[in-house]
């Protein structure tokens, strides 16, 4: 970062200007030093006038450049106004004190000159810091913030583009190629939908962290494997542990059974975690079966679902009848595991 006048907004002052001003300043300061060395000190009013002129010449051009640069910015304008007010008050006070000493106080009229000069110089220094250093810092931080925001935007855009390319665009291309195979098209579309949903609503990213996520993964697997759709509804969730993982596995088995045997395109999966128990229900409206005769000889139901739930300390209830669908209800007390 260099000079404040050279950054950001549109109106760039010509460098020739600045060089000229610096030269004039240098000449005036040199002349003043020469005068102070080789002539007797002028009377106080002239001294004050000289001081004001020199400080004004030193600070003026910078102040002009800085205000022109920052005019459009409300916050910067406020800072500048305060600095100017402070400087003016300081310089004015110094002059007034000097005049009072010179006219009223007979004790030490010689002290008036230094006081006035000191006040004017401090005011000039304050103005110089105010109009050069502060705007410079201000512009620097603002530029950095803008650059960062632009970078974040660019990164976000790139991420969106990459994601859409990898998922939706690829799927659309595949679907165009395989228009003759409705089942494959449906599978592709479902897969893309799920991916997009997961990405938009922040679900299903990588390894599931809780019960709801694990059930969603299980439902997805069954959907992909059997080409059915699983309508998943969860109320509340809980962390995964050995027991809740077991329930997810049992639910997955129940889903697989429903997909294989029910002969329906849709299966409902419901999970609810209340204070002390976990309930998972897998329901289909398919051809159903008679639990009294079917339950024991089917390995999936007997072992993977009922046996597993018993070992976990939970229960498994089956509501089913031939011709009116089936529902497998898994319950697990979770009060102690939370």
């Amino acid at each position, binding site marked *: 970062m260099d000079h404040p006048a050279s950054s950001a907004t549109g109106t760039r002052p010509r460098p020739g200007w600045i060089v000229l001003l610096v030269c004039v300043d240098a000449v005036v300061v040199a002349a003043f030093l020469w005068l102070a060395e080789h002539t007797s000190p002028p009377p106080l009013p002239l001294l004050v006038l000289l001081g004001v002129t020199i400080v004004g010449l030193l600070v003026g051009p910078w102040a002009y450049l800085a205000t022109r640069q920052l005019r459009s910015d409300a916050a910067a304008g406020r800072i500048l106004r305060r600095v100017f007010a402070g400087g003016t008050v300081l310089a004015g006070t110094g002059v007034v004190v000097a005049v009072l000493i010179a006219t009223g106080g007979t004790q030490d009229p010689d002290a008036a000159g230094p006081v006035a000069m000191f006040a004017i110089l401090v005011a000039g220094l304050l103005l110089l810091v105010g109009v050069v250093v502060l705007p410079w810092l201000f512009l620097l931080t603002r530029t950095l913030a803008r650059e960062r925001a632009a970078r974040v935007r660019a990164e976000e855009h790139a991420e969106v583009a990459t994601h859409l390319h990898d998922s939706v665009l690829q799927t659309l291309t595949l679907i165009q190629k395989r228009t003759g195979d409705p089942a494959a098209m449906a599978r592709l579309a479902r897969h893309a939908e799920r991916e997009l949903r997961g990405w938009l609503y922040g679900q299903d990213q990588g390894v599931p962290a809780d019960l709801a996520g694990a059930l969603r993964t299980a439902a997805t697997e069954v959907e992909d494997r059997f080409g059915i759709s699983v*309508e998943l509804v969860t*109320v*509340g969730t809980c962390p995964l542990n050995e027991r809740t993982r077991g329930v997810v596995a049992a639910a997955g088995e129940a889903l697989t059974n429903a997909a294989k045997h029910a002969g329906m395109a849709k299966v*409902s999966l*419901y999970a609810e975690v209340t204070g002390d128990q976990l309930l998972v229900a897998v329901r289909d*409206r398919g051809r159903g079966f008679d639990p009294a005769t079917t339950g024991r000889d089917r390995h999936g139901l007997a072992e993977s679902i009922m046996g597993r739930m018993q070992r976990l300390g939970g229960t498994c209830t089956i509501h089913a009848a031939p011709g009116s669908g089936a*529902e497998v209800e898994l319950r697990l007390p979770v009060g102690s595991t939370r």
Partner: protein
Amino acid sequence: MSRVRVFVVDDHSLFRSGVRAEIEPTVEVVGEAGDVAAAVDGIHALEPDVVLLDVQLPGGGGRAILDAVLAAHPGVRFLALSVSDDPGDVIGVVRGGARGYVVKAISGRELCQAITRVHAGDAYFSPRLAGFVLDAFTGDAPVPPDPELDGLTRREREVLRLIARGYTYKETAERLYISARTVETHVSAVLRKLQLSDRRELSRWAKARNLT
């Protein structure tokens, strides 16, 4: 009996024509619109029985249409339709006056049932909406300020739970040994509570959901 007059609002014309094709034999689609302004004008002019309303719409969302129409035409029933998984969106449009919510993947037959039910003045809860509502009213919320209004009764919870599990109203009634009419009464009561309940509690819930 004359067919139910339906107005379809969705910003995807492909989806509008798809819905029209699926429900046309059963109900009469009198008009359709793709944005908020056109929908409000169309509904004012045609006064349909039921409006199928997409939750996310350019120009203010489904909520803007509900606000603009219901004041002038309280008799028009709204059924929200969406692909959204965001419970805040869904609950918002129901609280705005929609009498039901279904997902866009719904079959034509089920959609017709939902339209008929909403037209009759009942509420239609899809499993997903029932799940959202249970979540909203259960959670870990402390005792609500007005239990009469804000809490769900045990029976209402049971009904919602079965609907969330994929039971139809009729199956729910059979399972609970009550009449289908009673199930409808419970669901309508839940809808009313949802629309009147304390705003603070629900917004806090929505916030908590979005954070996870």
